[in-house]
Structures are given as C-alpha cells and as structure tokens.
C-alpha cells in the first residue's frame, strides 16, 4: 500500500487530468440517474395513437415473437422526454470518451512503467482486509476504456434511431448508461473486489436489457438464464479472490502482480486461482461449458446485443485473464486450459453458426467463436494479441450487429406496414436487401471480410497474430514443456493451432452464408412488404459508417513486426502491463518467427479465409431458398447443427431437471414442507398444545384440590427438611 502510494506520488500522470479519471465512470452514472428519473414518467400518459410512427417495438427475439400481433401493442407517440433522453444518453458517453482520449494521450506520451492509481476512499476495512475504492489507469485499462466509451458512444447514437418509438425509451437508455458505468468500473478498478463490483453490475444490466421487453416470457426467461449462468462463473471469481487473499493477503492488482511469484511457479494454489478465474471467464465471456446463455441473450434489443453481448461485456473475461497475466503466466496448466477451452469453443460455436437461420443467432455464435480466439491468444501468453483481437472484434462485431439491427429495423417496418406475422430476423425471409439498403450492405461486407481475415482489414491482423503466437509457442515455451492431463503441451498447442485454422475456415463460410442469404439473391419478404423496405435513418447509418472505417483500418494499431518501424504499436504500448508475463512464458525472449515461416503462416491464413468465402459463394444458392414458412425440416447433421448439438436439451436433462426434481422433492416437500413447516413450525405448535392440555387438566377450579396439593407439598418439604 505504501509502496503503491509512493509510486503514485512520483507518477508522471499525478496532478494531470488523469486525477479526474473517476469522471469517466461517473458521467454514465449521471446519465443513468437522469434517464432513470425520466423513465418514471409513463409512456401511457402520452397523446393519441400515431400509426405512422411505427418502429420496431416488441419482440425482436427469434421465433418467440411470431405470435405477436402488431396491434397487441397500441401505438404510442414518442415519450414526452424523448429529446432530452436522446441528448443525455449519448452525450455522457461522448464526454467520457473525450476524457479517456485525453488521458490516453498523456499516457502514450509519458512512458509510464507503473500504473497510476487514483484512490477515492477506503471502501472495505476489516482486520487485515483493506480495500480502497480506487481506479487504475494503465495501458491495458485505458485501451479497454477507449473501446467501451468509443464503441459504446456509437451504439448509443445508433440506439437513438433504433429505439426511437419504444415506449420505454428512457428506461432503455438508463439501463444502457448504467451498463457503461459498471463496465468502466470493471475495467478501471484497481483491485479484484472493485472489478468484481463492475463484473456483477454488468451482469445485472445484461439481465435487465435482455429482458427489456419483459412482457414476453421468452425474453424474461432468456434474461434469467444469462443471470444464473453468470452466477456460476461469479462463484469462480469469488473463490479465486478468497484464495488470493488467503495466500497473499492482498487483492490490489499492483501488489498481486508484484507478489504472485511467491506462490511458486506451477504450484497447486496458483493453478487453482487461475482455473477459478477462468471459470468466471467462461460464464461472463460465454465459453464452454457456460456459453448457452449468449445466443439466448439475443432476445434483447439489437444495439444491446452489439454493445453488451459482442463488443464489451463478454470481453470482460479476456480482460480478466490479461489483467491477471502474471498469475496465468506462472501456471502453464491453467494457461493451457484457457487456450484449449478457447480453441474448442471457437471451433464448436463456428460449426453451429453454419446452420442458424436467425441473423442474430449467426452473429451470436460468431461472437462465442471469436471470444474463443481471444482466449486462445491470452491462454498461450500472447496477452497483447488477445487484447488486439478484442479491440478489432469490438469494431467489426459491433458493426455486424448494428448492421443486422438496421436490417431487422427495415424488415420489421416492412412487415409492420402490411401486418405480416413473418419473422423479421429469419434470413429465409430476407434476401436481395442489397438493392434496398446499399449502405448497410457495403458496410456489413467490410465487417464480414474483416472477421473472415482478409487483408488488410482489421480482423486479418489480429487473428493472424493469435495464430502465429500459438505456432510460435509450440516449441521453446513453458507451455510447450508443460503437460496437461498427461498430454504434452506442444502437442496440445499444435491441436489448438489446427482448431484455430479450422474455425477460421468455418468463420469465412458462415459469415459469407449470412451475407449471401441476407443481401444477395432474390428478395423473399413478399410483394407488399418489398415496397416498404428502405435504408434506416442517418442516425443509424452514421455509426455504422464510423465502425466500418474502424473495422477496415483497426488492424493498423498493431501491424506485424516484419512490416517495419510503426509495427506492433499496441504490443509495445501494453508492454508495461503484460510484457513481463508474456516473456516468462517464452523463456525471456520475444517469440519471433523467422520471416519465411511467418509468410507461410499468413499465406495459409489468407488462403483459408479465401477458400471459405469462395466455397460458400460457389456452394450456397440464395436463389434456391424458400421463406421460413415453406422451408422443409433439416435432416441429418444439418438438423443437429440447427439444434445447436442439443446442448440446451442436454443441460436441461442432466442439470436443470435433476436440480428442479431435487428442489421439488427433497428441498420443497422434504425440507421445507416436511422438516421446517411440519416438524419445527407445526411440531412446536402441537407440543405447546399438548403441554397446555396437561396444564388444563391440573387446573380443576376446585379449591379443595388445590388445598390438597398445597398440603402435600408442604408436608413433602417439611419431610425433606426433617430427613436431612
């Protein structure tokens, strides 16, 4: 603690605008308060119905909204404070982003080796436990803060258009602002408990926003599922924190990084800490086995999917591993577990993405898959590469989600005009949208090529860097020399590399498939609907365009080393935070591949991406698709993929049903009704009633009887005295 304060006093950021870093989370919180108060004004008090103001109202979730008659939701004019909310919601983010940029500028110029910790007040003080509410500015947290506030701002602007006619407009922005607040607490917190506050808070906001259209039970259920799944992961976070505190007596990032080595390299305690932290990551970042909530989370409004379930919250797990880089670098077993689970998830989710029909479900599985890539990166100790992919993914996945939101917005509006009950999110009902929405079409293709890994778009660089890092560590690294459940680390890394390549191929295929079915071929929405298809308003397309530029150029923040001087900027920027941990894994020297090898790897990656795209174009015929209503049932392996390997059903059988059964029979009937209600509550009642019955029999009301008892008692006492 003292050491940390001493470091803070001499820190180049001390006394600068970085002292005001607390404003970054505080601003969205103010937005939450303002919008939250405005949301108390109900929309039902508003003026007469205005049928022309028909935007996307309820029921964007897949399948579940087929039963929604559009007249179930009476048209309402906009919320009375619509304009105030439209300004406050995005403005707080813009201010926070501006402040973050300023701090970033200072930090980039300062070459600060130590993090700058801004202590606000003592938060938890009990015995040896001393936790400050403190924010930490370092290279890693500032990169995350820029992504959260920057991409967050764009998504807020998009939401202004997307949610404009929703009766709960201020409530939506209140939740969105609250989410950003908690996310900033998560990434800026200077200790694990502060981070945990943000970690729990974003989970809460995720729940609130998934179930935003709570009138539909499926949406509310999806929210609950996400919440419960995350709770399982949070248990891991807590246990890891307990272990850290029990063994090191501190929970500050600075102290933990400094002292983690005391736990011994590869020791049981540090491995347990790493694995429990990773359990938390599997919940928050939707990795096997806790990934099933993320596709269901698509029940929320699409901008929410873009912000929370693609760009920011789900990357918190990656951030946690990068933040705990020192811990993970000390335990090859936990690191290999992270990488392996990431690779399996990447491949597994990519195969599911091949056969989904809901445009948002494709993107959801794509997100799970890309998160897997990030975990491969941070798992093999290439923390900068993982964070790099996190950043580029935030760009192109936010763009894809917002683009799909734009598509759904257009489809929904068209269906709304004609009163059609068709699914506005099913790709089989789309097709040929290129002609109607040229901007969205072009921008989404950029994002698709980026995620597929076509140079020089951002996804190519970040994905290539991860795969190259895995390749580089197959020999001469602590991971390769370790063994994981008896499997040699190098063999496992080869396997991870191959799975990564395969997932890259599948990514190219399913993304191209999504684009083909959505934008190419004939339009399948119907004659009447076609007339109403149009590009979304500018307030939605401008954020798309900005994200398009970022998706295209985002890779330049971390060019491969062989391209010359400005290369690996992010890598070098993050070095003070993760550099030492990375070096520990590669035995103290930078993992450099020979130029020839690197060229071959890049060629391979590009060839795979191109193969995937070409294969999809050659193989898939959008013209042969029929609308959802007439589509035949899939068979064989396609059916298995469409049903997501029946994992939800498996979990239902093996976990949910037994838990419900045990709860019902043992806990409810046995414990609650039987033991507590029956034996303890009613039992004590019966006991008292029995005692009362005995007492009542004694009280005969006959004075004579009492006199007898009295005399016998006196005689007994006297007798006792005289005997003694």
């Amino acid at each position, binding site marked *: 603690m003292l050491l940390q304060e001493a470091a803070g006093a001499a820190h180049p950021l001390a006394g600068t605008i970085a002292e005001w870093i607390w404003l970054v989370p505080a601003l969205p919180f103010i937005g939450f308060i303002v919008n939250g108060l405005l949301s108390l004004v109900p929309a039902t008090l508003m003026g007469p119905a205005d049928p022309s103001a028909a935007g996307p109202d309820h029921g964007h979730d897949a399948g579940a909204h087929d039963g929604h008659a559009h007249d179930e939701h009476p048209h309402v004019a906009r919320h009375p404070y619509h304009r105030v909310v439209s300004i406050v919601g995005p403005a707080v983010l813009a201010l926070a982003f501006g402040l973050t940029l300023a701090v970033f500028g200072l930090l980039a110029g300062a070459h600060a080796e130590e993090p700058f910790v801004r202590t606000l007040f003592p938060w938890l003080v009990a015995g040896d436990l001393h936790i400050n509410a403190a924010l930490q500015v370092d290279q890693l947290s500032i990169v995350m803060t820029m992504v959260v506030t920057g991409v967050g701002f764009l998504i807020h602007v998009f939401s202004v258009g997307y949610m404009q006619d929703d009766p709960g407009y201020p409530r939506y922005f209140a939740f969105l602002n609250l989410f950003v607040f908690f996310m900033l607490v998560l990434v800026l917190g200077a200790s694990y408990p502060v981070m945990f506050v943000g970690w729990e808070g974003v989970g809460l906001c995720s729940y609130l926003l998934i179930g935003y259209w709570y009138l539909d039970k499926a949406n509310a259920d999806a929210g609950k599922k996400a919440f419960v799944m995350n709770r399982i992961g949070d248990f891991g976070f807590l246990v890891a924190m307990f272990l850290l505190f029990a063994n090191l007596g501190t929970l500050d990032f600075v102290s933990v990084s400094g002292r983690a080595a005391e736990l011994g390299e590869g020791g049981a305690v540090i491995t347990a800490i790493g694995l429990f932290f990773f359990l938390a990551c599997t919940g928050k970042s939707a990795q096997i086995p806790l990934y099933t909530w993320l596709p269901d989370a698509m029940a929320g409004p699409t901008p929410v999917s873009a912000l929370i379930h693609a760009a920011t919250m789900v990357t918190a797990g990656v951030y946690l591993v990068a933040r705990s880089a020192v811990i993970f670098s000390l335990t090859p077993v936990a690191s290999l577990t992270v990488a392996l689970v990431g690779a399996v998830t990447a491949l597994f989710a990519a195969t599911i993405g091949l056969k989904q029909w809901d445009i948002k479900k494709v993107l959801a599985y794509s997100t799970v898959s890309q998160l897997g890539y990030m975990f491969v990166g941070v798992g093999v100790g290439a923390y900068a590469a993982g964070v790099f992919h996190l950043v580029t993914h935030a760009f192109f996945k936010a763009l894809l989600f917002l683009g799909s939101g734009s598509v759904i917005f257009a489809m929904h509006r068209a269906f709304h005009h004609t009163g059609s009950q068709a699914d506005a999110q099913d790709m089989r009902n789309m097709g040929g949208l290129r002609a109607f929405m040229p901007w969205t079409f072009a921008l989404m293709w950029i994002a698709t090529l980026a995620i597929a890994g076509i140079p020089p778009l951002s996804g190519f660089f970040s994905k290539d860097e991860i795969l190259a890092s895995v390749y580089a560590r197959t020999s001469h690294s602590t991971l390769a020399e370790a063994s994981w459940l008896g499997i040699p680390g190098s063999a496992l890394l080869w396997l991870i590399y191959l799975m990564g390549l395969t997932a890259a191929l599948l990514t190219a295929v399913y993304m191209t498939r999504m684009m083909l079915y959505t934008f190419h071929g004939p339009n399948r929405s119907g004659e009447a609907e076609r007339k109403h298809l149009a590009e979304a308003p500018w307030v939605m397309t401008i954020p798309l365009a900005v994200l398009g530029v970022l998706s295209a150029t985002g890779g330049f923040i971390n060019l491969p080393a062989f391209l010359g001087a400005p290369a690996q900027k992010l890598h070098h920027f993050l070095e003070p935070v993760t550099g030492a941990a990375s070096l520990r894994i590669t035995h103290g020297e930078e993992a450099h591949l020979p130029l020839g090898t690197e060229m071959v790897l890049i060629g391979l990656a590009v060839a795979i991406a191109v193969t995937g795209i070409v294969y999809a174009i050659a193989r898939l015929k959008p013209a042969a698709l029929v609308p959802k209503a007439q589509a035949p049932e899939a068979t064989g392996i396609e059916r298995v993929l469409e049903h997501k390997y029946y994992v939800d059903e498996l979990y239902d059988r093996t976990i949910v049903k037994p838990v419900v059964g045990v709860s019902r029979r043992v806990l409810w009937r046995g414990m609650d009704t039987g033991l507590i209600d029956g034996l303890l509550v009613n039992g004590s009642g019966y006991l008292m009633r029995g005692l009362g019955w005995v007492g009542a*029999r*004694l*009280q*005969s*009301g006959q*004075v*004579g009887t009492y*006199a007898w008892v009295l005399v016998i008692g006196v005689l007994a006492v006297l007798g006792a005295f005289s005997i003694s």
Partner: protein
Amino acid sequence: MIPEALALSAVLFTIGTVGVLTRRNAIVIFMCVELMLNAVNLSFVALSRLYGVTGQVFVVFVMTVAAAEAAVGLAIIIAIFRHGQSVNLKNINLLKG
C-alpha cells in the same frame, strides 16, 4: 407447660387442616381456617414465655388480620351464595381450565 400448649396447638391445627381438606361447605372451611390461625396464635403465646413479648405482639396482628379476613371472606361467601344459591365448593369451579 409449654409442651402441653404446643401439643394442643398442633392438635387444633391438624383438626383445622383436615377440616379444610375434607369439608365442602364454604362456611365450615372458613371456620376451620380460623381454627388454624388460632392454633398458631396459641403456639405464639406459649413460646413468648421463652422468647419475649414478640410472640404476643404478633398474635395481636394475626387477630386483626383474621378479623379483616372474616369480614371480606364472609362477604364473598354471601356473594357466592346469592349467585348460585349454594356455598358448596363442588359447585364453585369457574376457574376450571
């Protein structure tokens, strides 16, 4: 002299006790209680020869209280009789649980 007085006192007290326990008529029980009180008075007086006048002073107190008790007790018995046309304790069990 004293042993005889104490013996008489004991006999009177026992008669009173047995009367209280066995009889059912409230008036009789009342009289038996008086008998017990006076038996105790007798032993007070007898023992005052050994221990000074305190016993005799106490007897005066007891008689005073007994007089008050007689007044209140008889009044209650009359009230009970007016209520139930009987002073038999068998019929008086309003406090039965």
